[in-house]
């Protein structure tokens, strides 16, 4: 491979390259498809088997829940929503970065998204799968979960469409469906690439079926690109609506600490923040495992670090505005909730949240740390933790102090809560391992459009790199 040059500085003239290592179309295809063609590496099993073990923990935890009922969780009288809802919001939020990368950055013509969009979209779908488990199992009597949907039934009973919880059923399930469509459509040309080069007959048939007979025709590309643009334009307002509606589950209630108008934008910013942290965590591992330093370059990571810092500050702004409004409203209940949040029984959770979400990303003011993958990895883990705690703080600290002091209580999870949460990571990582093993991790057809040879007019952009030989 050609020598890697650094691409985080813009040259005096032109733009720094997005893809390094002197890749051409052929070598890029080889690089991306090669991991799918070789024998399963031992490292993959080392990731897959623990993930599968964690997934079985999920099976046990849910099985016991179904057998015994939601009394196995730590819920009590004022705190009727516990870890299940915290985990639901956590996972839905993580999904949002995938759609931001695939749709919003596409509309803004941010071509650096091409290296990461495929795996970020996969992450979205797996995160939404994890998220959907929690409200599904939280209904208690799971065999009547279909009551959430407008399905004709023998009781002539229908959902109440004025309830944000019903909006949420539609928002999250449609979000999952549209993300799946977007992901699959984006993958069709790459499935055809695998179909056309694999020597195995079985693989040719399997990948071929899903490639639908794609023959890379310009007449097809034309409708395809239009469909992709439309999907991006539909997914952009969709993703903003999904977490807004999730926040309305809280904001439309009367509970101090939940009943605020800042929730929709605050939740959306937090979702993107947590999602990018998860993308960074996964991409640093994949970059190392698949030796994709030339495709997932430092420039990509630096851009993601900037987005993490920006959204982190938006979240920090929301935290402070909540306090300001509590004071400014003159409402004693609001004021009590926020003082209690920062200094009451759950103060430990609040300060973990603030340190992880507001303080830790500030390190990205310095380029040295934005381009240091070790620092990025650590901060991304902090943000993942902090964003989980944000949802925990919102749910538990608002609920545990009711209007009536006689109902006050302290909520702690049981081991079944913890096992369900760990198990959901098992599902997420199992799916991600299968994805990395059997599907192209990088959107080849899209990355090829940002290679120098892709421009039909001239021989590619002039690239001058400071300090490169």
């Amino acid at each position, binding site marked *: 491979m050609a020598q890697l040059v650094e691409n985080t500085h813009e040259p005096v003239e032109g733009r720094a390259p997005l893809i390094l290592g002197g890749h*051409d*179309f*052929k070598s890029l*295809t080889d690089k991306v498809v090669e991991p799918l063609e070789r024998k399963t590496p031992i490292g993959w099993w080392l990731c897959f088997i623990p993930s599968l073990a964690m997934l079985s923990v999920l099976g046990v935890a849910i099985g016991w829940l179904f057998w015994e009922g939601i009394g196995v969780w730590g819920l009590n009288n004022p705190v009727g929503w516990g870890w299940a809802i915290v985990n639901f919001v956590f996972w839905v939020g993580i999904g949002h970065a995938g759609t931001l990368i695939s749709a919003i950055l596409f509309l803004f013509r941010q071509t650096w998204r091409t290296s990461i969009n495929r795996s970020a979209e996969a992450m979205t779908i797996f995160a939404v799968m994890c998220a959907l488990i929690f409200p599904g199992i939280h209904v208690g009597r799971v065999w009547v979960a279909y009551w959430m949907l*407008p399905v004709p039934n023998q009781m*002539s*009973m*229908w*959902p109440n*469409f*004025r309830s*944000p919880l019903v*909006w949420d059923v*539609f*928002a999250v399930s*449609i979000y999952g*469906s*549209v993300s799946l*469509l*977007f992901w*699959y*459509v984006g993958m069709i*040309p790459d499935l*055809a*690439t695998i179909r*056309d*080069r694999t020597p195995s007959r079985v693989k040719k048939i399997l990948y*071929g079926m899903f490639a*639908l*007979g*794609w*023959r*890379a*025709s*310009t*007449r*097809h*590309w*034309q*409708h*395809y*690109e*239009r*469909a992709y643009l*439309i*999907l991006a334009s*539909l*997914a952009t*307002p*969709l993703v903003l*609506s999904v977490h807004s*509606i999730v926040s*309305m589950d809280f904001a439309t209630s009367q509970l101090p600490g939940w009943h605020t108008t800042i929730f929709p934008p605050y939740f959306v910013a937090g979702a993107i923040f947590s999602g990018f942290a998860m993308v960074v965590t996964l991409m640093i591992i994949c970059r190392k495992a698949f030796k994709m330093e030339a495709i997932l370059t430092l420039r990509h990571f630096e851009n993601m670090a900037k987005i993490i810092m920006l959204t982190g500050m938006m979240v920090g702004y929301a935290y402070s505005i909540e306090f300001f409004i509590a004071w400014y409203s003159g409402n004693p209940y609001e004021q009590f909730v926020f003082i209690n949040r920062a200094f009451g029984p759950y103060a430990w959770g609040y300060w973990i949240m603030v340190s992880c979400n507001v303080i830790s990303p500030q390190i990205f003011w310095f380029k040295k740390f934005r381009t240091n993958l070790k620092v990025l990895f650590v901060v991304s883990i902090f943000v993942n933790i902090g964003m989980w705690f944000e949802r925990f703080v919102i749910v538990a600290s608002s609920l545990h102090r009711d209007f009536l002091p006689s109902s006050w209580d302290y909520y702690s999870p049981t081991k079944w809560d913890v096992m369900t949460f760990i198990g959901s990571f098992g599902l997420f990582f199992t799916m991600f391992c299968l994805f990395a093993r059997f599907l192209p991790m990088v959107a*080849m*057809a899209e990355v090829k*459009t940002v290679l120098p*040879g*892709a*421009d*039909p007019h001239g021989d590619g952009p002039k690239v001058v790199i400071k300090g490169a030989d």
Partner: protein
Amino acid sequence: MGLPIPLIPQLPEGKNFGLLARFENAQTIYTACEKVRDAGYTKWDSHTPFPVHGLDHAMGVKASKLPWLVLITGLSGATGGMLLQWWVSVHAYPLVISGKPLFSWPAFVPVTFELGVLFGALGAVFGMFAFNQLPMLFHPLFSSKAFARATDDGFFISIESWDPKYDETQTAALLREAGAVDVEVVENG
């Protein structure tokens, strides 16, 4: 041409499907497409591993009508969503909540929007499949060994034998003159 039926390719009559020419890079196929277009061919196509910017114009292909289809499916989804909620709340299961009217439409906006997006997305994806006549798992071009490179690093032009201007020797000469590296005859499978 008959109706666009998925899975069954619309193929020219006779022994040969047409000519397949490979070009070296995106620049040469762009100018070659302009030449084939200007020579007056109509039943032909180009195949590139990624969408080459502006190649549809170089081929003289008209703009996709997909957005109109998506507009129709999306609006149908939204209308259907609002009607569903109206019927459920006013007729099927009327509930008075906080003294609001039964048809309290502002509360129905989120689900209306979501269903509009869902049907728009379904229209975009399945409309794209329909316009492209996909899935079409068999096609004569797949019998060409070289054609496998179309999804890797190869740039191809295929001219079908039922084009009125098609002539095996002259068309091949045109393609070579336009910069083709290899030209081959593809048989009907």
